[in-house]
């Protein structure tokens, strides 16, 4: 048992979640693998989306996995960082847009 909440070796054990609930686990991985196949979006585009979302949900396993996936696909460092900025912009924007709610409430409260 690791003393850390996150252990990078646990990423390779992701498939073990099937052991305790095979039916749902298998459905999840079938769905997951289908999502990342070439479709209306290329696998390359999906990899960059996954990298951006990984940063938004702040999942270290996902960041490791999709950084490696991007490097293997030949994606450039600048492209990966732009994807992270898209994630940051949406996450930052999501906080800031609530500023309008704050303004509305303040205006309602004040004379």
């Amino acid at each position: 048992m690791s003393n850390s909440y996150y252990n990078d070796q646990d990423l390779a054990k992701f498939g073990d979640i099937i052991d305790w609930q095979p039916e749902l686990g298998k459905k999840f991985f079938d769905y997951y693998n289908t999502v990342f196949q070439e479709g209306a979006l290329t696998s390359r585009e999906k990899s960059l989306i996954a990298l951006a979302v990984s940063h938004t949900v702040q999942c270290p396993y996902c960041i490791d996995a999709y950084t490696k996936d991007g490097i293997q696909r030949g994606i450039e460092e600048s492209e990966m960082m732009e994807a992270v900025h898209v994630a940051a912009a949406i996450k930052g924007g999501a906080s800031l847009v609530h500023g309008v709610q704050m303004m509305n409430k303040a205006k309602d409260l004040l004379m």
Partner: protein
Amino acid sequence: MKSLKAQGHRLAKAEQQLYILRDHEAVGIPEFAEKINELGLFPLKSTGIEVFQVNVGKMCNQTCAHCHVDAGPDRKEIMTRDTMALCLQAVEDPSITTVDLTGGAPEMNPDFRWFVTELSKKGKKIIVRCNLTIIVANPKYNDLPEFFKAHNVEVISSLPYFSAKRTDAQRGDGVFEKSVEALKMLNAVGYGIEGSGLTLNLVYNPSGAFLPGDQMGLEAQFKSKLLDGYGINFNSLFAITNLPISRFLEYLIMTDKYEPYMEELANAFNPHAAENVMCRNTVSVGWDGYLYDCDFNQMLELKVNGCALKHLKDFDLQKLNERSIVVNQHCYGCTAGAGSSCGGEIT
């Protein structure tokens, strides 16, 4: 940067590399021979030699960080014209269709042009594994594109990435810029240009401890980036896996990546790739005329099986076509993922 040999590094010795590779239990992966035995492929047999690969010397103008040959300017091992003459005799049989010249930088061998000229008279397909920068390294090499064209040589050149950062990290400072210059010179005489009949293929190998991605996807990106950015054309991209040998093995050990990399290779074992590994239709000749199953076995000094067949002087095509191939743990590199050969993906 000096070669491992010039540094006196322990991994310059093949037996030290084999000592590390053989300890598969420490890594927690099966023995490669056992793995292919499960498929009924052990002992791995030759399917008949079609490709005659010749390492004409370890001298090179570059000292790449991942080089499995440990080549460099300080390496003096060079094939003599006498040994080349033995090669010319050995390739007489029509079943040998291709002669694949590698090094080091093969062009640095003083008898390289003589050898290519003699080979071209035999009507064999000739491949030269050109590192590109040699073409611009010295004025005496500037006419190599014309020389290649005159002998209808297929040129295969390493370019690990379409930007300077990743290319130079692997192959040395300034290599990307010089490679671009050399590629333009090859394009200028027709190499890589549609309809010219002159083939220019590029080799991608990962700039780190990971498997190459999809070859077709990488090729599409290389084509677009090199054409849009530099006006460069080429025919195909070959994605080749780095094998845990020599300098790449040293890199893996120094960065604590040896065990995870070996695990990754073994976990990605592909039975279809194992059936079609390049050593089954290849023989590899060392600078001193000794025979090996592949260039990787050559660097690990694992000579071909059969006590009477180990040197060009004893070349016997029939016996070589019936030989069992020497395998070891590094062979996982050729069977991982989509497989890897000197011509890229296997499957």
